[in-house]
């Protein structure tokens, strides 16, 4: 704190001051054990010290957080309107067969959730409940803020300082049930902020699919600042699906950090379809030999949206494998950013890392900045990356046109084809079919938008 107080509150930008004030004001209402309050204190001190990132930082070279700083977001009122069961069925048809937890503005809505009460040790708890004491608290205390440090990350610091609720997921050893775990985050209100926090612990030999779905039911400017920490223990296999489909006024910053133990496998499927400004930060630490990481992502945007994806795969030990496939589709005046970092530490021999980032630019004003990055400090490795930026294949378009397919339909078909690969990679047929529908309709909207703006 000493450093931050020397700066003097008044010299800080308004956006930073706003959160410091809110933190101080909320001091009396905050619940939770003492260690958590200490953690929150440290987090807000970090935030006070670093403030919001500027574009001078290499990490934020292509993304300005000014739109987020300009709005004085408030935590929403306590009476939050949960989606009706009908709405729920419409938003997420796949949720009916899943264990599900529904969060409204970051708070668990128990009526709409279907949680395993006593199902062979599978735990999906509200973080707030877990923190109230008992066995859950010990689990949280042991894992919270371990994977996602906040020292140099303003948004994670904010999340840590303000977090009230979220999900605590523990998949018991040897768990093999196919039934997916579905976490739905609904945002409501106007100029509201939520800081959902998710903690996932996959015990040895377990296998599961976990979906985190961010949606908004109506219009209104919101800011979701999500942090998810994942620990995959020995031999665990996790499919994590992140879907972001909030409204076009929303801001979304998410940070997912995973640590992988021996022979574990984590597949991350990131599908970003909504939001005005989205930043996805994904970090995978391959901490023990035999760990495998598979990152697959699709981002799609039109109008003036800005989508920024950062991935970091850290090969810390020998004999690990990582795969990355990130696809971008941009139309209108949208801007996309991809920065994929692969680090191979000294002695991490036999590392095998592949990264690919093809991008499709559909409109002249769209922009893409990509920066695939390899940092390799061991010699017996196989690493490669590739990135392409281009447009729809003219010959393929011509082929379709010559067979009587309308120009617009042909464009849509080809764009869908380009996007399909990511949705198809999802586990469970029902899930990938659903994701496919989401992507297809997003492509349709994008194509229609662009036609509207051209004529």
């Amino acid at each position, binding site marked *: 704190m000493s450093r931050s107080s020397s700066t003097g509150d008044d010299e800080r930008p308004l956006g930073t001051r706003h959160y410091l004030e809110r933190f101080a004001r909320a001091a009396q209402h905050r619940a939770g054990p003492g260690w958590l309050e200490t953690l929150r204190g440290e987090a807000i001190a970090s935030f006070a010290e670093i403030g919001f990132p500027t574009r001078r930082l*290499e990490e934020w070279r292509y993304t300005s957080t000014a739109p987020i700083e300009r709005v004085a977001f408030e935590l929403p009122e306590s009476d939050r309107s949960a989606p009706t069961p009908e709405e729920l069925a419409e938003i997420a048809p796949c949720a009916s067969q899943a264990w599900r937890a529904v969060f409204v503005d970051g708070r668990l809505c128990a009526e709409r959730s279907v949680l395993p009460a006593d199902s062979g040790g599978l735990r999906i708890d509200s973080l707030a409940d877990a923190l109230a004491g008992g066995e859950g608290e010990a689990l949280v205390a042991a894992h919270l803020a371990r994977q996602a440090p906040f020292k140099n990350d303003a948004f994670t610091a904010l999340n840590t300082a303000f977090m009230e609720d979220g999900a605590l997921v523990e998949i018991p050893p040897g768990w093999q049930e196919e039934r997916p775990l579905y976490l739905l985050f609904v945002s409501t209100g106007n100029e509201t902020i939520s800081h959902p926090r998710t903690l996932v612990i996959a015990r040895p030999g377990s296998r599961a699919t976990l979906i985190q779905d961010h949606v908004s039911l109506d219009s209104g400017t919101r800011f979701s600042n999500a942090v998810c920490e994942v620990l995959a223990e020995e031999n665990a296999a996790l499919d994590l699906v992140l879907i972001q489909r909030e409204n076009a006024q929303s801001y979304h910053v998410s940070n997912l950090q995973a640590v992988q133990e021996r022979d574990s496998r984590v597949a991350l499927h990131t599908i970003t379809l909504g939001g005005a400004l989205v930043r996805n930060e994904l970090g995978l630490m391959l901490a023990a030999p035999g760990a495998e990481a598979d990152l697959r992502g699709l981002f799609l945007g039109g109008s003036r949206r800005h989508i920024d994806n950062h991935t970091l795969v850290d090969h810390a030990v020998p004999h690990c494998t990582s795969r990355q496939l990130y696809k971008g589709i941009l139309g209108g005046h949208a801007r996309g950013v991809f920065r994929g970092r692969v680090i191979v530490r*000294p*002695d991490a*021999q036999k590392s095998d890392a592949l990264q690919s980032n093809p*991008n499709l*630019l*559909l*409109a*002249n*004003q*769209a*922009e*893409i*900045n*990509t*920066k*695939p*990055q*390899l*940092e*390799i*400090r*061991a*010699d*017996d*490795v*196989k*690493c*490669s*990356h*590739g*990135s*392409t*930026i*281009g*447009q729809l294949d003219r010959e393929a378009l011509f082929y379709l046109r010559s067979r009587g397919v309308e120009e617009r339909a042909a464009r849509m078909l080809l764009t869908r084809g380009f996007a399909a690969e990511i949705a198809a990679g999802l586990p469970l047929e029902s899930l990938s079919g659903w994701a496919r529908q989401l992507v297809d309709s997003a492509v349709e909207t994008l194509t229609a938008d662009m036609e509207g703006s051209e004529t």
Partner: protein
Amino acid sequence: MANSNPDIEKLTGEEYKYGFVTDIEAEQLPPGLDETVVRTISAKKEEPEWLLDFRLKALARFLEMLEAKQEPTWAMVDYSPIDYQNVIYYSAPKPKPELESLDEVDPELLRTYEKLGISLQEQKRLTGVKVAVDAVFDSVSVATTFKEELEKQGIIFCSFSDAVQNHPALVKRYLGSVVPYSDNFFATLNSAVFSDGSFAYIPRGVHCPMELSTYFRINSAGTGQFERTLLVADEGASVSYLEGCTAPMRDENQLHAAVVELVALDDASIKYSTVQNWYPGDKNGVGGIYNFVTKRGACRGRRSKISWTQVETGSAITWKYPSCILQGDESVGEFYSVAMTNNAQQADTGTKMIHIGKNTRSTIISKGISAGRGQQSYRGLVRIGPKAREARNYSQCDSLLIGDECGAHTFPYLEVKNATATVEHEATTSKIGDEQLFFCRQRGLSEEDAVSMIVNGFCKEVLRELPMEFAVEAQNLLAVSLEGSVG
């Protein structure tokens, strides 16, 4: 000097054969940088007022940057801070003669260049291929060959100082037009204190009949070398230019901050090849040249072309990004690079391709070889501006790792603001295949020969872009630089 440790000298002596010092009387300014130094350099060269102004503006900016600690730190290189007030900014062999013929050049200097394999005696060229050479020794140009023959075609090829005296209009028009004096830390320093370098102007429609070449040599201790090269190819002209460099072995680090500006007008083409072999320091990373160079070419005219080829085997630290600004429609930029780091060498090198005009094309082929404890980064930018319709880029960056203590890093930036552009980037990193090695060993090649052969194959795409003589030199250099890294 590394005299204190005869073992080390013996070891490194074989590897860096250009490490000798020429005993020649030099005229030097005292170390330090201030207005007096800049004015003295300018006065020594009898420069016109506008050039002095250019230098002074640069100096003011540099001192500002120094004050604000704006020395770039983003590159992946690690070195202890440079004391810019402890560098000798001007050193020249004494006396500076008014040269009419080569006979008047100090024989000691001629012998130096003979030892380096660069003949300044025009008639003595053995290969039959004519190469016009401008030899730069410490801070000044000592000789330029084939001047007269070139003049017949209207080609101007001379030292930068001569150009300032004899062709001031040309120099004034193009100096700083590609790399402005305030461009970056090291370019600003160069703009303030540059001493000499080469100047070439190829008039309209002329294809330069021989290779132009500059050979840079750092000799004196404690000096920095700051040369400035300016090459202008007028409409329809073409030229191929070579650059080579060496320095003696010393256990101090010497600074080399050069600026190269290329201008290609309509239909002109410039091919710029570098074989950089500054002293890399010894096995323990003591000594060696800090090579902080700004190279940039502007394809101003339609259908103009600039091609950079570089073989970087020397220097303790290389910080160098030869770039192309593709301004003219249908202009072409190329970058072919082989960089080798062994022992404690570090290199952060790459290119920038800035596409501004329509239908512009660029190709980047970068091959990095890292051995010993060498650290190497490819750092490149491909920017497609909003008006660069149908722009095309292809980049390929491959790294080869030899030994488990070295590193290879790739930092490509692709910024595309036009949807009609096609940009492709590929990078791979791997070690020399055990099977390849086994195959060669089985056929009776020693391990070192096998590695050298594989490395040369790995670099083939770049080496074949070099003019013949240079290609041979480059291959030998790669083999020498690898010595001691295998087994």
